[in-house]
């Protein structure tokens, strides 16, 4: 049995398990027994394992497995191909969904109605199936087919808490944006079908430039909307906080990566975008990264903060892709492989630490019952494991050495550094500014996560929710533990993995560095033990507060306090506007009675881009509806009369 038939059978077995996991809760929608959900989650777990071992050999030995699943009519057939790129993304999806499934074992039990619990389990399984199928579909029809299923299942998952008002807005925003992205995808695919004739993703390099540019722009916008690139990112900070945490972990960890898969597949396989295309991606990437992190700094809702960070990391991935395109246009293959590998490695890193962070945040939100970090604090003592997991996630997202975030950002940095001497001067200056903005982003991310971790977990609890928060149950710890371990493993063994896969990259071997670190740590501890033998044991005392008697939480730094200096430096970007209401006790407005003042952040994109279009469409529909609401027939017959006459006269002259 050759290797690819083995992996194919494993893959199909995995898919069958996953589908059965999805269908099972549907059959017994009303009964609340836990065993039903556990059995379906276990079968989903097994299927993820199967899928991982199915796609591992494909990545390592660069196989190409092509198979047809199902033909509805003779040209609408679901043909799939697993090659290295899609296998890599399958591993990404499977690993993250593995950990999310374990996490949901006990997370879902906290919900109230039984129907909702079963529905979420079923929808999550469908969601994972659709994402895996999108990644391996070769035929345009199959791609759109699963792309739409992915959007619809994730839409229903976002709407699972449909009672709240904010979920309504989030759901609406999300649905419209997904439909918009399908619209652009249809444009792009139709153009490809017109030029290349076949409905499969064929390579169309020898094609006239206008068509390729149009395809590139429409596909980029289509995938960009789903990935959450800046001008289209507005749905992300609404959809993720509204959906349950395990869903938002899946969505921001994996669904965004499927959109990135689309962009990478186009850039690498289908058609080589021109130089200006590369610059376009680079600029969009930098803007998304910068604005993503700057908006994250002002967020005090933990899940919105993480959502904005997904936008930032997508920007970083796009930087890598942009560099790849520019370098291939100057045919510097070594640098091109470095940057595309950096982008792909950052995709899987982001998938891992973002799902870790969302799951940890989910357990924190569930334990304290609120999403606002200003009301949290002191959780590190009450929830030690979750906080250490969150710490691992925070350290790896702010790209600090031993963890995986550092390696991928390092690769992109090296891409920038070594691009220096080889390109034209103007491009050189663009590279230089993008490098500085990228560096700014990663340092701001570090600052933001110090705030997020510090204010949420450290010091004293700021409200009684967080005072009596209690550590979550076992599955909700094992779930995030897997990505935490992966963060460390991928970080430390990164250069070993790359050499094993056959790429030699100029990145430092973190394995050697961390082993030396451990040796020196042991040495330091021994020296400190010997020299530091004191008579007095360790003493626990009051924090030194310049002489005040007892520390109370009111005196602690709040999240807005922490990030206020940075926000002050970046004031032009935030464009806050103050809103003051005053009430006077006399009519001459002289005796001030009471008032209300508020600094509100100006949602630039929402105010200037989305709302005007929405208001315009609503106005047209109101006018149209007004015309057609009249009951009497006269006006309608007048319309028909005029149309007949026009048709007749125009018909008479033209035909």
């Amino acid at each position, binding site marked *: 049995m050759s290797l690819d038939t083995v992996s194919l059978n494993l893959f199909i077995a995995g898919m069958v398990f996953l589908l059965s996991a999805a269908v099972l809760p549907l059959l017994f929608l009303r009964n609340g027994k836990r065993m039903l959900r556990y059995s379906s989650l276990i079968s989903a777990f097994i299927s993820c394992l199967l899928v991982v071992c199915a796609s591992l050999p494909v990545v390592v030995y660069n196989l190409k497995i092509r198979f047809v699943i199902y033909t509805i009519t003779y040209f609408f057939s679901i043909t799939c191909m697993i090659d290295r790129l899609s296998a890599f993304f399958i591993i990404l999806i499977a690993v993250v969904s593995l950990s999310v499934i374990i996490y949901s074992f006990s997370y879902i039990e906290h919900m109230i109605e039984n129907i909702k619990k079963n529905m979420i389990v079923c929808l999550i399984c469908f969601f994972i199936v659709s994402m895996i199928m999108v990644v391996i579909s070769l035929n345009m029809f199959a791609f759109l087919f699963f792309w739409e299923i992915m959007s619809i299942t994730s839409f229903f998952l976002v709407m699972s808490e449909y009672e709240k008002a904010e979920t309504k807005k989030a759901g609406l925003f999300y649905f419209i944006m997904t439909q918009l992205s399908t619209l652009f995808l249809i444009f792009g695919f139709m153009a490809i079908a017109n030029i290349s004739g076949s409905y499969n993703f064929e390579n169309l390099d020898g094609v006239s430039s206008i068509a390729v540019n149009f395809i590139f722009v429409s596909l980029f916008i289509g995938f960009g909307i789903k990935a959450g690139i800046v001008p289209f990112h507005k749905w992300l900070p609404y959809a993720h906080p509204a959906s349950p945490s395990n869903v938002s972990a899946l969505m921001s960890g994996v669904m965004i990566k499927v959109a990135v898969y689309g962009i990478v597949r186009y850039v690498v396989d289908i058609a080589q975008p021109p130089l200006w295309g590369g610059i376009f991606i680079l600029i969009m990437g930098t803007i998304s990264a910068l604005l993503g992190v700057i908006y994250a700094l002002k967020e005090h809702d933990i899940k919105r903060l993480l959502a904005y960070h997904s936008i930032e990391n997508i920007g970083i991935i796009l930087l890598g892709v942009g560099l790849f395109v520019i370098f291939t246009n100057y045919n510097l293959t070594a640098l091109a492989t470095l940057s595309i590998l950096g982008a792909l490695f950052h995709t899987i890193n982001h998938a891992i630490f973002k799902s870790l962070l969302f799951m940890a945040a989910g357990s924190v939100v569930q334990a304290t019952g609120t999403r606002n970090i200003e009301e949290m604090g002191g959780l590190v003592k009450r929830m030690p494991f979750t906080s250490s997991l969150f710490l691992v996630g925070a350290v790896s997202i702010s790209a600090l050495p031993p963890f995986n975030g550092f390696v991928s950002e390092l690769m992109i940095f090296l891409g920038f550094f070594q691009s220096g001497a080889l390109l034209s001067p103007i491009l050189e200056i663009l590279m230089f500014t993008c490098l500085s903005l990228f560096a700014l982003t990663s340092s701001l991310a570090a600052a933001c996560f110090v705030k997020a971790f510090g204010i949420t977990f450290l010091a004293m609890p700021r409200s009684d929710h967080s005072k009596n928060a209690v550590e979550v149950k076992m599955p909700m710890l094992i779930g995030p533990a897997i990505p935490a371990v992966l963060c460390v493993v991928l970080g430390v063994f990164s250069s070993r993995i790359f050499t094993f896969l056959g790429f030699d990259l100029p990145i430092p071997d973190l394995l050697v560095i961390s082993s030396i670190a451990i040796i020196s740590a042991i040495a330091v501890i021994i020296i400190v033990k010997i020299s530091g033998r004191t008579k007095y044991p360790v003493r626990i005392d009051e924090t030194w507060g310049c002489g005040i008697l007892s520390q109370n939480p009111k005196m602690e730094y709040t999240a807005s306090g922490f990030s206020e200096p940075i926000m002050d430096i970046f004031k032009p970007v935030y464009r806050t506007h103050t809103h003051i209401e005053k009430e006077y006790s006399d009519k001459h407005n002289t005796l001030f009675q009471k008032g209300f003042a508020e600094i509100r952040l100006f949602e630039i994109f929402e105010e200037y881009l989305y709302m005007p279009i929405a208001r315009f469409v609503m106005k047209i529909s109101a006018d149209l509806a007004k015309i057609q609401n009249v009951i009497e027939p*006269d*006006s309608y*017959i007048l319309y*028909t009369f005029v149309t007949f*006459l026009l048709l*007749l*006269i125009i*018909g*008479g*002259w033209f035909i």
Partner: protein
Amino acid sequence: MINFPYEGILSALFVLVLVTAAFILTRRNILSLFTNYAMQSLFIAIIALILFLKENSVTLLVLSILTFATRVLIIPYVIKKIQKLMRIRRDVSFHYLTPISSLIVSIVLIISIYYSFYKFAANLSLAGVSYLGSTLGISLTFIGMLVIFSRKKAITKIVGYLVMENGVLLFSLFFSELPLIVEILIILDLIMLILIAAILAFGIDSTLEEFHQKINPLQKWVKEKF
């Protein structure tokens, strides 16, 4: 047959048909509307008769008798009976077009249709009178539609629809007669339509309960018939 000048009589009858149409457009008194409609149908029946004399095809004769029977006798009688129940005398208000402007519009209508059809006449070998007849037929239909949307009362809208029906009949007379069975079916269908439209028109003006009491005897009447 004696070959007295067909064209002269036909064009005279055309004028008469258009005059009755003008009257229907402008008259306020409903009863006079019905009489105008009856006269218009009479003229069209005569036109059919003359055409029969000219081309002596049997269908034309049957057609003229049929139109005479239904459009001059039965339908006006039915509408008058329904109208008596409704006790409405005058349809005063106009909608969108005052009488004068609706007349002007109908004139413009006739001219524009005449010219727009000019191109087709060439390859349809339609000569003189029959070309005029068919264009008048179509413009009569449009005038009927003009009546429907410019008058407020439902009963006048029904008369407008009947005028459109006459226009179609006129067009079919001159352009090409349809097989007889089809013509009969169309007339049956027209009667059914007028019956229901009249009942509904009656329903609009009276209160709901009255409408339902009126419907029930009608149901019984329908049941005895079949």
